């Protein structure tokens, strides 16, 4: 009994996880409002996120499947330490058909009733609850979100200062936003129903707006923030419609008192969607594609990716946060979470995969011809997210989430390192303007190298395992897609090291903004990066797959594939198969080839652009980002603006004109009659006489004639 009480207390503490960063933000607000204790602002948020990170890690381990079982499958009993006496069910994540088994009721932790939906058909009250859905997928996401965020927040306490160590203007505000961002993302990840998910979803969008536009005095930053918000709005409209559609379809099906928007309920009845349609479109396809719209906006996928490169206007820690822990991972998470719905529709999965393929190639080619270091990284994020989408489309969500998890470490590392470079170079980020930073920034050089190697898929680093998992499963699902991904992986290695060599190799030169002595960062900024670097090297080992390990060169290390047992204890449905180990050797070779080619062409950090000379117009097309921004401007922005102008003109002239006319008529009549009112008494009398005379004449002569 005491044990149960302890469990309950622990569980209450774990469920309070999202509130700590929020508390930090609120405290910063109080500090700012009262003008006291402002110096504690960063500590309040670091503390709040720190507590969340601790709880996130505890939750992660409490969800660990019981490996004492011989079959190696996940066992829910250990996962549900959070609920003292919830029913223990064997999750059936290995059977593709049994999506019912994914709706394990004990994974839902209801905090309180939130919104009443009235009575359902059976006369029971239907509630939208504030509830959490905690399973293996949540556990992975919690670790990614809280740990990466914590490291980024700690880094920010050093980054958001000038060269004398004084906090920048808006330092406190920045930390309040960071706390709010982490809170929103945690709500998004923990949410147990679509309405709460949508709340977190929008809150994340709001925070990204606030943080991208942190330097709101800069017109570009303000525009980028607005762009991010508006582009996301387009996707979110589809997402909202998807939720409505899901409710519409499932509402008549669910049992008494069950809310069709709860994950547990929605996934329990997901296979009934197959029998429904709306306007000739099958229900699963409709719902999936609408939900996908939201994911495309948040995860910056084709065609809604245009906000992501511009989002680089925000401070570097924000870029790290958006690209690694929060925001862009939301879309991938949501699609993986909704796997029981997506898996019902081959069409939707195909669309997911095609969009992923387009995005992967598009982003990788654009990244090859950019000079802005952070933009290159932004395009690489888009490309890596596209990898995840391809995996989602290939029915391998576990591979997508695995890549999301490893990607978070090295992408955060890369952005924070880029921030260091930017810091040292006096906010110059154009790789043409500096080179040979190896000796000046030795730590950053080493860290960046690890990050780039991981991103490029260098063998045995984190990115290698997850990328290999994706390519391997996709290759089995669709060889064409697999080869495209392999090619993109080659491009990734190439452009990553093009950037790296341009930055760190060659003769040592700085822009004049850097001053005389560009310097490395203080320890508070180096420590988080070293931790991230450890993650970038080792994070992949939790997921080295059974298949690969049994045949390939890692056999001696006995990787147990702990990740796969863990993630399958969730709503994701894994119907994927691996290709042979040959693919692993091939992808290792591809990564090495990409790095080698980059070394051959850019190893000396040439001042001219060899690729431009070689590829000519194609390179220029990539450099101009396929003119997509211009295309959107021509096709969407300008016509809409023209339409807006038309409306303004119509409003100003036609609508307002009508009203002005209505007002002008009585005014004109009044002005005419005013002339008769001269104040002369006799005039009035004469007027009366003439009027009476006319009336008399009328009655006498005219009216009888009518």
């Amino acid at each position, binding site marked *: 009994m005491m044990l149960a009480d302890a469990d309950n207390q622990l569980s209450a503490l774990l469920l309070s996880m999202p509130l700590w960063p929020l508390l930090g933000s609120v405290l910063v607000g109080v500090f700012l409002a009262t003008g006291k204790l402002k110096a504690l602002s960063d500590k309040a948020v670091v503390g709040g996120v720190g507590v969340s990170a601790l709880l996130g890690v505890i939750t992660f381990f409490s969800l660990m499947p019981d490996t004492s079982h011989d079959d190696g499958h996940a066992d829910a009993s250990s996962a549900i330490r959070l609920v003292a006496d919830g029913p223990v069910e064997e999750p059936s994540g290995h059977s593709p058909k049994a999506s019912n088994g994914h709706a394990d009721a004990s994974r839902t932790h209801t905090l309180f009733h939130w919104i009443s939906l009235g009575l359902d058909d059976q006369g029971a009250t239907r509630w939208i609850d504030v509830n959490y859905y905690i399973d293996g997928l949540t556990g992975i996401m919690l670790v990614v979100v809280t740990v990466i965020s914590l490291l980024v927040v700690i880094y920010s306490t050093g980054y958001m200062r000038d060269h004398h160590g004084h906090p920048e203007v808006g330092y406190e505000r920045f930390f309040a936003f960071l706390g709010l961002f982490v809170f929103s993302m945690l709500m998004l990840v923990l949410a147990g129903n679509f309405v709460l998910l949508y709340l977190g979803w929008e809150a994340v969008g709001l925070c990204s707006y606030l943080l991208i536009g942190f330097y709101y005095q800069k017109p570009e930053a303000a525009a980028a923030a607005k762009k991010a918000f508006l582009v996301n709005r387009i996707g979110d409209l589809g997402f909202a419609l998807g939720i409505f559609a899901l409710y519409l379809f499932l509402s008549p099906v669910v049992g008494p008192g069950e809310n069709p928007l709860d994950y547990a309920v929605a996934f329990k009845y997901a296979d009934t969607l197959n029998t429904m349609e709306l306007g000739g479109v099958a229900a699963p396809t409709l719902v999936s594609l609408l939900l996908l719209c939201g994911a495309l906006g948040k995860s910056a996928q084709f065609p809604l990716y245009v906000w992501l490169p511009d989002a680089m206007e925000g401070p570097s820690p924000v870029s790290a946060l958006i690209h690694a822990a929060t925001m862009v991972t939301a879309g991938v998470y949501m699609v993986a979470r909704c796997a029981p719905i997506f898996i019902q529709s081959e069409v939707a999965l195909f669309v997911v995969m095609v969009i992923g393929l387009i995005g992967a190639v598009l982003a990788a080619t654009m990244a090859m011809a950019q000079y802005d270091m952070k933009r290159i990284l932004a395009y690489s994020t888009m490309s890596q997210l596209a990898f995840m989408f391809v995996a989602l489309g290939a029915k391998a969500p576990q591979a997508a989430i695995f890549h999301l998890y490893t990607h978070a470490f090295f992408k955060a590392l890369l952005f924070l390192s880029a921030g260091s470079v930017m810091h040292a170079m006096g906010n110059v980020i154009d790789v043409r303007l500096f080179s040979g930073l190896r000796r000046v920034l030795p730590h950053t050089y080493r860290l960046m190298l690890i990050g780039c190697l991981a991103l490029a898929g260098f063998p045995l680093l984190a990115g290698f395992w997850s990328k290999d998992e994706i390519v391997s499963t996709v290759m089995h699902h669709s060889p064409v897609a697999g080869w495209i991904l392999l090619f993109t992986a080659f491009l990734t290695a190439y452009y990553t090291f093009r950037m790296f060599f341009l930055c760190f190799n060659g003769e040592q030169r700085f822009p004049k903004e850097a001053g005389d002595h560009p310097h490395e960062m203080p320890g508070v900024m180096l420590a988080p990066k070293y931790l991230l670097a450890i993650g970038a090297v080792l994070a992949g080992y939790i997921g080295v797959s059974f298949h690969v390990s049994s045949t390939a060169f890692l056999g001696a290390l006995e990787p147990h594939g702990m990740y796969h047992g863990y993630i399958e204890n969730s709503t994701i449905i894994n119907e994927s198969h691996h290709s042979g180990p040959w693919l692993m050797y091939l992808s290792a070779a591809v990564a090495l080839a990409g790095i080698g080619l980059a070394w051959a062409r850019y190893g000396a950090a040439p001042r001219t652009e060899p690729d431009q000379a070689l590829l000519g117009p194609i390179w220029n097309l990539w450099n101009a980002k396929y003119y997509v921004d211009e295309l959107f401007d021509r096709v969407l922005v300008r016509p809409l603006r023209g339409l807006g102008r038309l409306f303004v003109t119509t409003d100003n002239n036609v609508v307002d004109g009508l009203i002005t006319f209505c007002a002008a008529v009585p005014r004109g009549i009044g002005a005419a009659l*005013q*002339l008769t*009112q*001269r*104040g*002369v*008494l*006799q005039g009035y*009398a*004469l007027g009366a*006489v003439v009027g009476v005379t006319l009336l008399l004449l009328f009655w006498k002569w005219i009216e009888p004639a009518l």
Partner: protein
Amino acid sequence: MLLPYVLVGAALFVLGLVGFVTRRNLIVMFLCTELMFQGIIVNLVAFGRYPLRGEPTLDGQIFSMFLLVVAASEAALGLALVVLLYRNKGTLDANAWTTLKDATA
């Protein structure tokens, strides 16, 4: 025998009307309104005495009594106003008092 009375009444009324419209002196104009009153009263009495249909009644004469009372009280008020106006501007010209017209005209 209605016609002579009506003609006298009409003559009185028109005399008053023309006087009111043409003269500028406030007192004369005031007297002209009285003249118009008397023209009306003559009409009322005449139509009472020689009605177009039916027997003669006293209605016209009673009505004229009321009118006389109204005219008398109006005369008291009106002459007092004329005195006040004279004190303000030192003239009895009606054209001196056009301040009630619209200011913008």
